[in-house]
């Protein structure tokens, strides 16, 4: 298997799917000539032409609305929104139109739209370019939410999104673009939604790590291993649908759970997972459900302040250690 970056994995998937299906198009700000501000769409405009790879004005409402209307007519648009922070600019088209089109029509409207969007703090980008808005949209039935954490998942989940039948918010963590990993070459390689991955096995404590938190959670698990604590790491891969069974099975095994995400703690994805565990797995738990997440303030600019607000490897290790060594 080849080792490629998360960014290359996304690029390749778009290239392969556009080559395979003429109905797949890419629209967004600077996705064409520029190749994407994150470089992800690279030479796709050269390869597929300005008709299928379209640079748009800075018009998030029009981007999502156009993707929706085009999907109703049979296309499979990929719409790129440069920063997750900009999703609310397209709020109505995303929440009231795209998410609900199928349901409101009694199931007749088919709207396969993949919204590729970045998430997370890239470092000193401050309050309007650093947010992790996944949880905002978990409260909107009709959307699916993918949070790939590895290059292979970036590829496999994006393929599933593009070939699927539903609107997907595909969150690409900015700090993961340059990370490398093994990615299968099979042109049909896909990762199904709603299937979590066990990234590391352990029996002392479960760490549910979402998206960009996976590398930090793995680091924390290494630290804990040196202390004799075996952490199990579960990566949900998609938040909607959520693989409850895998999370519950891990908690059944360990009896302890830490949920880690970069989104703000209050009503972040961890709140839903914690509530789910409280409803469905409370009997397996030997301690409180602990969340490690961004503090409930806007993301600050200063590195000192930002590092304090964002969850760090140490925070994850401390939380897991606290649970694992807790006297029952």
């Amino acid at each position, binding site marked *: 298997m080849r080792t490629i970056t998360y960014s290359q994995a996304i690029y390749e998937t778009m290239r392969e799917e556009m080559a395979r299906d003429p109905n797949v198009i890419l629209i967004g700000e600077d996705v064409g000539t520029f190749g994407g501000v994150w470089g992800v769409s690279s030479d796709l405009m050269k390869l597929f032409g300005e008709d299928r790879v379209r640079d748009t004005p800075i018009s998030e409402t029009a981007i999502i*609305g156009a993707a929706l209307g085009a999907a109703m007519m049979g296309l499979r648009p990929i719409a790129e929104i440069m920063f997750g922070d900009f999703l609310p600019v397209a709020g109505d088209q995303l929440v009231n139109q795209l998410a609900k089109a199928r349901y409101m029509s009694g199931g007749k409207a088919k709207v396969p739209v993949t919204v590729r969007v970045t998430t997370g703090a890239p470092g000193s980008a401050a309050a309007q370019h650093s947010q992790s808005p996944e949880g905002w949209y978990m409260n909107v039935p009709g959307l699916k939410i993918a949070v790939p954490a590895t290059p292979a998942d970036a590829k496999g989940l994006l393929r599933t999104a593009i070939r699927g039948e539903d609107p997907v918010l595909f969150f690409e963590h900015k700090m993961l673009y340059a990370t490398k990993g093994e990615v299968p070459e099979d042109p049909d390689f896909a990762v199904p939604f709603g299937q979590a991955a066990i990234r590391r096995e352990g029996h002392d404590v479960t760490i549910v790590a979402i998206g960009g938190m996976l590398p930090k959670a793995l680091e924390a698990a290494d630290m804990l291993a040196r202390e004799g604590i075996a952490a199990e790491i579960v990566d949900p891969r998609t938040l*909607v649908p959520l693989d409850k069974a895998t999370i519950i099975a891990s908690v059944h095994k360990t009896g302890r759970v830490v949920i880690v995400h970069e989104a703000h703690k209050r009503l972040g994805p961890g709140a839903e997972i914690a509530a789910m565990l409280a409803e469905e797995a409370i009997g397996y738990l030997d301690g409180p459900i602990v969340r490690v997440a961004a503090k409930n303030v806007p993301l600050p600019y200063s590195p000192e302040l930002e590092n304090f607000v964002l969850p760090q490897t140490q925070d994850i290790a401390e939380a897991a250690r606290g649970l694992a060594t807790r006297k029952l």
Partner: protein
Amino acid sequence: MAITDYPDEKLLHLYRQMYLVREFELRAINERRAGLIPGFIHSCVGQEATAVGACAALEPTDVITSTHRGHGHLIAKGGEPKYMMAELAARTTGYCGGKGGSLHMSDFNLGILGANGIVGGGIPIAVGAALAFQQRKEPRVALSFFGDGAANEGAFHEALNLAGLWKLPVIFFCENNLYGEGTPQAKQAPVADLAIRAAGYAMPGVIVDGNDVLAVYEATKAAADRARAGGGPTLIEGKTYRYRGHYEGDPMVYRSKEEMEAWKLRDPVTGFRARLLAEAGLAEEKLHALEAEVQAMLDTAVAFAAASPKPQPQTALEGVYGDTDGGLVF
């Protein structure tokens, strides 16, 4: 074009459609009062000519997006009154199986991409449909109906800008009925003619008498021909007036009886009917026959709706996704 240049068949069709829209609305209002229809209704009584004139200029393969005041648009694009009435009555036989109601009716086979509960919400969607037509080089046109109120929404600006930029085959049809909900247009926009905004998007802006179905038809036909030939979008503003409140039950404290009575002298339906008799020389019996046919159709529609089953509660969970991932999505 003079009215005498139109074939009788076309004139009768336009009149029939307008009469159907008017009578459908009056029936719906009655049936809501009678308890058949549980939800709210924003009726388009008084605005029949914009809906019918514009849709008459479209081909069956063209598409429209509609508004909260959308019953007329749907009927004009070929929507069947019985499925519409059943949807209003929240029955399984309705256009959306009772999940949409007045604000969300759609029929994708007829090119009706949906009424819309959000002011301005359908405009970017029409642009997207036009994008698909352009990208696949299909000679089809998308038309978006919206009101004067929507012309002050951000979605209007983004959609028209994108369509002007890409020369998309789309028609923006503004039904200016002078009121955005309960506030007059003069208090909502610094310009009286919204069509002048077209200049900012490098597209023609056309003002028509929105109560004259032939004027609306001709303006829309010209825009559709141009769009189909690759000439890009057009903004049409049809000046019209709604007779009833923003919604049924609106106390209408914001306008005068005199104003309402003055507009009724320019009624799009009865005015056109009078012209058919006086100027086109059509026999009144023909109109009577057509009116009777429409009334019978509406009798059937109401009976169909009333006799149709209400949905089983569990079916509320169906249709959210095309693929539920084995039920995991819930």
